């Protein structure tokens, strides 16, 4: 199992290296490695690597890992394989707030920050609606997430209709399609503390998530503080989803599909599944981003769109194959 985990880490590292090589201007591996070794060199390659590609690759790897871990956490907590990070309401809330902000003429530069704050606000609203006693009701959480997302999507649609006469419509649509374009080291630095908080919240929840695999009642009898685990997981999943929204807008399917792939590779033990999901998510989004940057260069495909094109058939294939094997 640990060998497979190491394999996934190697794949993620290789994907990041490939991401550095490809793009509008393909770079030879030797030049890229040289630039990585000498960050202060004044060559064109060093500038491309350190100021353009590396921040972007770190951005997309961060997004992939965050979404995949967030999805694995929520699927484990709710024992529902169809749950994804956006169930927390983060993306829909962020999209609605950003659409309204862009419509109101607020600069697109402020969009990631607005998305982060609004996404967390929306997650709090979902959590408040899903509250039962001191914990969360899994059914209510799903219902609240789905219905609030529908509500916020209506706001986004309204904003697009209203914005059609101006430039903000394309900005809103671009944001919804998901892209890390325009993000840099600063955005990553802004997200890191929140991802670190999420990681700290996850740690005490890991043994509880493993115990919850046998169901809530038996886990509770075995000593699991189910309500505490629910809040820790929801908070960390929402923080990670908000970080990814800040770094790349709406990137769908990663949080849904990657935990399934990771489970097939390393099994159901959450101690291994979470890092495996992080590596697999980082690898998938980095590769998808490399394709987005090269396939129609110098134009870029939206990352979210490409991931959906890859993700949906892959997901269906996995499930149909699974179904016929049973």
């Amino acid at each position: 199992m640990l060998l497979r985990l190491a394999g996934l880490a190697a794949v993620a590292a290789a994907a990041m290296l490939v991401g550095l090589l490809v793009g509008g201007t393909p770079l030879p591996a030797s030049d890229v490695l040289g630039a990585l070794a000498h960050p202060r060199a004044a060559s064109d390659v060093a500038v491309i690597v350190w100021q353009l590609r590396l921040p972007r690759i770190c951005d997309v790897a961060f997004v992939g890992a965050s979404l995949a871990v967030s999805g694995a956490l929520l699927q484990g907590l709710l024992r529902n394989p169809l749950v994804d990070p956006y169930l927390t309401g983060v993306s829909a809330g962020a999209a609605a707030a950003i659409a309204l902000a862009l419509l109101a003429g607020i600069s697109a530069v402020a969009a990631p920050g607005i998305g982060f704050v609004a996404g967390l606000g929306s997650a709090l609203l979902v959590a408040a609606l899903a509250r039962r006693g001191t914990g969360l009701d899994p059914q209510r959480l799903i219902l609240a997430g789905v219905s609030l997302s529908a509500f916020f999507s209506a706001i986004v649609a309204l904003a697009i209709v209203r914005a059609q006469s101006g430039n903000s419509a394309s900005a809103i649509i671009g944001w919804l399609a998901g892209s890390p374009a325009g993000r840099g080291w600063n955005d990553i630095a802004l997200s890191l503390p929140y991802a670190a908080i999420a990681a700290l919240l996850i740690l005490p929840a890991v043994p509880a998530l493993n115990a919850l695999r046998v169901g809530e009642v038996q886990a509770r009898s075995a000593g699991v503080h189910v309500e505490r685990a629910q809040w820790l997981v929801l908070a960390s999943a929402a923080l990670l989803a908000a970080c990814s929204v800040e770094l790349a807008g709406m990137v769908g399917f990663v949080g849904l599909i990657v935990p399934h792939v990771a489970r097939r590779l390393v099994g159901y033990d959450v101690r291994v599944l979470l890092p495996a999901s992080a590596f697999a998510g980082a690898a998938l989004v980095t590769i998808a981003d490399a394709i987005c940057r090269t396939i129609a260069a110098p134009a870029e495909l939206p990352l979210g769109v490409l991931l959906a094109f890859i993700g949906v058939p892959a997901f269906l294939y996995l499930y149909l194959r699974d179904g016929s094997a049973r």
Partner: protein
Amino acid sequence: MIEVRDVALEVGARSLLEGVNFSVARGELVAVIGPNGVGKTTLLRAVAGMHALAGGSIAIDGVPVGALSIHERARRIAFVAADETPVEALRVRDVVATGRYAHHRWWEWRENASDGSAISSALAEVGMERMRDRVFSTLSSGERRNIWIALALAQETPVLLLDEPTTHLDVHVAQRMLGLLQRLARRGKSILCALHDLNDAAAYADRLLVLGSGRLRIADRPDAVLESPLLDEVYTIEMERIRLTDGSLRVFAKKR
């Protein structure tokens, strides 16, 4: 030892049970019987600390259940629910290992030697050691029941609570299950279980508690309970009693 004193239980705003008093000593197997919906499961859940009391007190070895943290509780009381939880793609051993949760602090993620021996002896106790690497969902109902009991045994608690452990089991597997519970009690556990089959309960339990009409109606030796006309009243059906050649009593509901 389980001590239940003047306990009242409610479900929502509805009063379910009141004035319930009984105790289960170390080494004793006590069965709770009574018609559907009378509160057997809720009583077990209350003893397990999973259902709030509307009145009275429940103590384990002198310590009120409500005063125990969830971790402390799990080291004193193990509860096996009646519901079948679907568990996907987990090996039998992983399911049983869940019973060791309360023996670790949250940062202790690795199994230690005492976990390994507790899991192995729990599996051996229920006769499932050779199934340790099987996928749980591929087991039969009876085997799965045994694994849930092994999970509870891996908790190494003095108190074991089981809600309808013989439901869905064929007569042979059910007898083996009850024999196992009797053996566990003889080795010092306090066992309280809800059962539907009156004859099984009488054959294996040391005492029977009969719940009916919101109260504990009888708490006595099995024969005394089966002989009591109160049994007919509680189940609202006439019972026929037959004394077997070995001297034990059996009851059967008369056909209406």
